[in-house]
């Protein structure tokens, strides 16, 4: 192998080393998340519950299998999905502050849920259903974000300039938020409370049955992102260069938007909107791996995103107390300092 190739491997080695370390940390934090909760459960009890369930205490089994394991898995999926979506948005729009919700996916989902929970508020009467089943909320959120995805794809095929698409996405987001505000304005306290709690995000309300739907959705989204690694690398230089290198811009955009909508939409549907993770994690990944190649960044973002979400969940459990924090606040408090740091760093030299 030539000297240059050997040099190149040096760069990759660092990235691979980081990936290996992250892969070891993940199961560790997974276990830690299983340990933390209101009920005091020891590691041996957890292992017994997973591997020798016949021998375990039934209450412990219930808590672990029905509550902690699905919550931990949801945390991993949410962290990974939102981070990958954020990574793609940052690359395609060449904007370091882009995130998974920039296309309006989260607003669409919140409109769907708002219509279900708040109804048309005081305007036309009470909500559509008296009891919002958890599947109902998921469906409403998905339909909402699905409609936005269709809108974005329509716009994207008409508009050439990617910056225009970004601005339109932001404007659509704002418009929908205003509609949601109107619905909230006309609602009474209990409906409002229900809706507001949804907007705070929660990992613990996803059951194993729901995971059976969430898991494949997230996997599909991640798979598409992985297959788009080549597109994403080309997008780094901008769409003009990408086109000159033979990339089909329309197709590439569609793959990326589809993946983002599936990832962000699914997580928002099941967990409510969870912010900041999608913006902060891709930057951590880029910094840790010192590379811009997406074939390395995608797995790194998945691992770091999952870890960050597990950490957020652990913190939100407020170990040692009966109370809990809404997960959205924790991700914000963790993510905002990182975002601030990005902005300060960018003042000096680079972008993205």
């Amino acid at each position, binding site marked *: 192998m030539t000297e*240059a*190739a050997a040099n*190149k491997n040096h*760069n990759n080695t660092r990235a691979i080393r980081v990936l290996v370390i992250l892969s070891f940390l993940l199961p560790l934090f997974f276990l830690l998340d299983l340990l933390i909760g209101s009920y005091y459960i020891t590691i041996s009890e957890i292992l017994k519950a997973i591997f020798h369930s016949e021998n375990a205490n039934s209450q412990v089994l219930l808590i672990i299998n029905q509550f902690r394991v699905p919550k931990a898995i949801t945390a991993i999926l949410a962290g990974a999905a939102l981070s990958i979506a954020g990574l793609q948005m940052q690359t395609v729009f060449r904007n370091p502050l882009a995130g998974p919700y920039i296309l309006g996916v989260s607003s669409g989902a919140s409109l769907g849920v708002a219509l279900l929970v708040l109804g048309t508020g005081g305007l036309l009467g009470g909500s559509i259903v008296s009891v919002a089943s958890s599947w109902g909320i998921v469906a409403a959120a998905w339909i909402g974000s699905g409609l936005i995805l269709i809108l974005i794809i329509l716009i994207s095929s008409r508009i050439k300039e990617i910056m225009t698409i970004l601005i339109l996405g932001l404007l659509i987001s704002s418009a929908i938020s205003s509609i949601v505000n109107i619905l909230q304005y006309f609602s009474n306290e209990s409906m409002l409370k229900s809706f507001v709690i949804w907007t705070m995000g929660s990992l613990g309300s996803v059951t194993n049955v729901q995971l059976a739907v969430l898991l494949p959705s997230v996997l599909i989204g991640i798979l598409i992102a992985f297959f788009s*690694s080549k597109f994403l690398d080309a997008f780094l230089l901008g769409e003009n260069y990408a086109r*000159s*290198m*033979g990339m089909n811009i329309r197709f590439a955009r569609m793959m990326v938007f589809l993946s983002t909508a599936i990832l962000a939409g699914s997580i928002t549907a099941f967990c409510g909107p969870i912010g900041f993770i999608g913006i902060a994690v891709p930057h951590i990944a880029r910094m840790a791996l010192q590379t811009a190649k997406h*074939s390395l960044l995608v797995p790194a973002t998945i691992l770091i995103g999952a870890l960050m979400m597990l950490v957020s969940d652990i913190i939100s459990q407020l170990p040692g107390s009966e109370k809990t924090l809404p997960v959205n606040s924790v991700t914000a408090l963790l993510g905002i300092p990182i975002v601030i740091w990005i902005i300060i760093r960018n003042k000096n030299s680079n972008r993205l």
Partner: protein
Amino acid sequence: MIHQQPEKIIELARTSVGYKGKAKSDKVVKSDISVYALKGELVAIIGENGVGKSTLLRTIAGFQPPISGDIRICGKPISRYREKDLALLMSFVSTEIIRVSNLSVFDLVSLGRYPHTNWFGKLLEEDMNMIEEAISSVGLRGYENRMVNHLSDGERQKVMIARTLAQNTDIIVLDEPTAFLDLSNKYEIVHILHRLASDKGKTILFSTHDLTTAIAESDRLWLMLHESVEQGAPEDLILNGNFNAIFQNKNIYFDQEKGDFRILKQTKLTACVTGEGLPLNWTIKALVRNGFEVVDSANQSTIQITVNYPHWTVTHLAELLKFDSLLSLCGYLKGLEN
């Protein structure tokens, strides 16, 4: 001996370029362009600012469609090519400054292999070799792991060119590749382009403001004037007077003897200069710069200057003065005008 018609790699025939608007509100930037470039030529597009060089280049590169007429690449209109096939034939370098952090020189150059690699972008040995060669060709061997953002402007430009080399196309189109570069880098870049055309047989098309280099290095020029686009060897276009039509400003003219552009200056005073060789030439240049018309005989002027490097003697009316530098001489002369 059979004289083979050389292949027209890029050809425009009565093509118009500009921006397509809605329903007949197209903005035509340049119409009726008929030019071409042959295989292995280094072609420079020159013209005044705003005359449409970038628009023409971007249309050739396939970023925007022509308003009317086609652009044929290797005989086939651009619109008939699939993106991937066009990318195998033609690569492009724009004026945009790429700012991506954590991107190494190697990784950026390797992007050039895009049309050659599989869906995942996996680099095989052949790809690696091409990338290395490309990096060496532009003189950046050893820079593979450096971050592109930490390079100087000249180095970064070379990296972008290396990328096109890795893309391994027969045609390379560059928009102002030497803008913002100092002379040394300018020379290096043009030299690389020249070698690519002459040694590797690539067709290189680039736009530039640097007329001197364009004249000195190009095989063919596309001269974008205000009414038409002319083509030919630089010398052809100089001899047939087209160069004078480049700038609309009446005060700029092309000196066909010296081979450069000059600015007409209002001359106020005259001076007669005697001397020899280089010191004489440069003294005359300094006088012209200060708005003096240089005359041959002493009768035509009240100012006589004798050059005896490193001394100058000035006789003006009754005064006789000596100077040790052109700077002080000119300072005195400026005082005379008042």
